[in-house]
């Protein structure tokens, strides 16, 4: 890890339930619109990366941000999902787009 890192440890652990912030933000965002406000489970902590929202404007992207793979049940993401009950979508999401969540 480089010197410019954020928290020493990731905020969320594998298996923890999180909710994606329901925020409409301008600029370069890598959290897809369809997942905003949805809750899922941390599949794993992926690592620390520079923030693409800053990199997109030529800035350093430091301090590093924690990145997680978050798993969502498709039936929770789409109101009329037509596939199987076990179908999921995994998305790599940065920590600042997540918040803790109790209920699904």
């Amino acid at each position, binding site marked *: 890890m480089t010197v410019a890192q954020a928290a020493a440890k990731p905020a969320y652990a594998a298996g923890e339930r999180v909710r994606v912030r329901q925020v409409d933000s301008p600029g370069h965002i*890598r959290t*897809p619109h*369809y997942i905003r406000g949805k809750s899922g489970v941390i599949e794993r902590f992926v690592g620390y990366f520079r923030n*693409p929202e800053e990199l997109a404007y030529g800035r350093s992207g430091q301090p590093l941000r924690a990145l997680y793979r978050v798993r969502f049940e498709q039936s929770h993401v789409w109101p009329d999902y*037509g596939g199987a009950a076990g*179908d999921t979508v995994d*998305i*790599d999401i940065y920590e600042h787009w997540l918040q803790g969540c109790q209920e699904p």
Partner: protein
Amino acid sequence: MSDHHDHAHDHPHEAGHRHPPQADHDDTLTYYRKLEMAVRELLIAKGVFSADDVRKTVEDIESRSPEGGARVVARAWADPEFKRQLMSDATAACAGMGFEMALYDVKLAVVENTPEVHNMVVCTLCSCYPRMLLGLPPAWYKSLAYRSRAVREPRAVLREFGLELPDRVSVRVHDSTADLRYLVLPMRPPRTEGYSEAQLQALVTRDSMIGTALARTPD
């Protein structure tokens, strides 16, 4: 490939430049081909890179194909220890085989198909793709339709690719939104006991590593 001179779009330069009258065949230099030429020549003249750099980079792009990924998959099928390394740290395991993901400034994640889970990869926001291992993405992967529907109705998209999966197999879609690139490790086909890695490699298709197909079965 479109071949038009529609001035409704943004040009980086002012109106008033002239375009030659548009001829009606693919050999005409469209505005965008001229733009590519102009940008490349200007950057070479400024010493940003050389013509040789461009040529070598194009050759490197052309040298990458799904064969790369197929070699990795075949090795994972044949060698349980390599498979364990691949699932634990795909970037390092592939570096050991000569694929330097760092050259594209990304990391690799391998997701394994099982009898219970079928993986499918998309980039809804642009067209992120494991080019180091698979070469250039197919046109359909970059299409607006795949990017929109792969997350929304993956089974319908798979049906369009001729793949119908029973409900007891969960479809797991991966939206590559960050610096990870995803490669699907398809299930090893039946009746391949004793196959060499080369024989196994021949069964691994590009689409099976994206997740819109299964690996081929022996005849």
